C-alpha cells in the first residue's frame, strides 16, 4: 500500500509517496535525489548510510521511511554552508581522510554525532565511536586525525599541527 511520508530533510519540508517497505535511504536517494547517503552493506554493519534523525545518528538502510514520518533528517548534503565546507568536512580534506570516499558521508555524520555529545574526544573514543563505520581504504588513521581536528575547529580552536595527517610511524 502506498502512503505519503512527510518529513523535514536538511531544514526543508519534503514528502514522498512510498510503500511500507521503502527504506529511509531509498526515500532519500531515489525519491529526493539525495545520493550523498550511500548503501554499502545493506545489513546495518558498514555505516555508509548514517544520517541524523531528530539529531541522532541512525543507519538509514535499517529504518523504514514510514518510521521517519514527521522526523527531522540531516544528510551529508545538509552539512556544508553553501560552498563552504563544514569544519568536519574540511578536516577530512585536510587530513587526506578518504581514498575512494564511499564511506565518507557516513563517517562525517557519525563524527558529528560523536562531537555533539563529546566535544573533546580522545583518539580512543573516536576509534570506539567508529565501530559501526567501516572503511576499506584508509586504515582509519587519518580519519581519526580528521575527526580530532574537526572537533578542535568546532570548539573554536586552531587546527592541530601536522594538518596533512601523514604521521611518521
Amino acid at each position, binding site marked *: 500500500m502506498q502512503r505519503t511520508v512527510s518529513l523535514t530533510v536538511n531544514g526543508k519540508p519534503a514528502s514522498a509517496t512510498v510503500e511500507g517497505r521503502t527504506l529511509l535511504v531509498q526515500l532519500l536517494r531515489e525519491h529526493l535525489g539525495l545520493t550523498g547517503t550511500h548503501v554499502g552493506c545493506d545489513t546495518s554493519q558498514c*555505516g555508509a548510510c548514517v544520517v541524523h534523525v531528530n539529531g*541522532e545518528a541512525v543507519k538509514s538502510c535499517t529504518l523504514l521511511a*514510514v518510521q521517519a*514520518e514527521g522526523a527531522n533528517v540531516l544528510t551529508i548534503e545538509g552539512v556544508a554552508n553553501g560552498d563552504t565546507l563544514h569544519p568536519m568536512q574540511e578536516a577530512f580534506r585536510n587530513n587526506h581522510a578518504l581514498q575512494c570516499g564511499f564511506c565518507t558521508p557516513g563517517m562525517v555524520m557519525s563524527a558529528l554525532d560523536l562531537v555533539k555529545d563529546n566535544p573533546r574526544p580522545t583518539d580512543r573514543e573516536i576509534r570506539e565511536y567508529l*565501530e*559501526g563505520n567501516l572503511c576499506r581504504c584508509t586504515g582509519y588513521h587519518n580519519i581519526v586525525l580528521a575527526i580530532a581536528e574537526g572537533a578542535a575547529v568546532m570548539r573554536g580552536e586552531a587546527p592541530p599541527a601536522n594538518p596533512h595527517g601523514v604521521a611518521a610511524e
Partner: protein
Amino acid sequence: MYEFQYHRATSLDDAASRLADEEAKLVAGGMTLIPTLKLRLAKPTELIDLAAIPSLKGITEEGDAVVIGAMTRHADVNRSDVVKRAIPALATLAGHIGDPAVRNRGTIGGSIANNDPAADYPAAVVGLNATVRTNKREIAADQFFTGLFETALQPGEIVTAVRFPKVAQANYQKFKNPASRYAIVGVFVARTPAGVRVAVSGAGACVFRVPAMETALAANFSPDAIKDIQIPQDGLNSDIHASAEYRAHLVNVMARRAVQACA
C-alpha cells in the same frame, strides 16, 4: 522485503488489538526485524510500530529495583544516571550493543522479545534475576527465555517493561564478533541478594545459567574458584565464527574475567 501494511500504534490497547491478527508483527527499534524482513525470513501482513506509545519509554526507580520501559533504547540505558548508579554493569552492557547508530534505535523490549541467541540483554535479564512485565502478567527471567528465538510470550502479549533488582556487584564480559558486534560468547556474573548468578549468551541456542559456577562462586567469589569448571560443548553453537569447543572454552574465560571485574 515482501510488502506489508504499516500501522503506528497510538496506545498499548491499540497495538494489542491489531496483534490479534496472527500474521501481524510488532516493530520496536527494528534493528533485528528490518534485516530479517530484508532477507525475507519473515512475511508479516502488518507491522505495528510501538514507537509512539509514551508509556513504554523511560527508566524509573521502584524501591530496590530499576524499571526500564520496553521501548527504552540502548543509548538511553547506557546514559541513564539511575542505571549507572544502581546497576552499573547494565549501563555498560547497553553501551556495547551493536554500535552507536544501532544503540540510537534498538530497544530492550525488542531485544528480549526477539531472544537472539547472541544478544546481550538476555544475559543481563537472567543474570540479574529480572522480571519481565507484559500487558498481561509478570514473567520471571528464568521462565521467559525458552529456546532459540523463543520466549514465554503468548500470542497478543506485549513486553511493557523489565524490572531489574539493584545489584551493584555485577559484570558482563563479551567476546564479540568484530563485524556484527554480537556476542560469540557473553557471560554475565552478578552477586544478587538471592545468590550468585552466572548467565551465558551467545554460546547456546538460548541464554543459560551455569549452576556449577554459581555454587563454586557462592563459596569462594574468585576467578580461581571456577577455573576448572568447563561446560560441556554438546549442544553449543558451532558456525563460521566459532566452533562449539571454542565457545565452551570462552565461557570459562569470560566468566573468570567477569568475576575478576566484580571482585
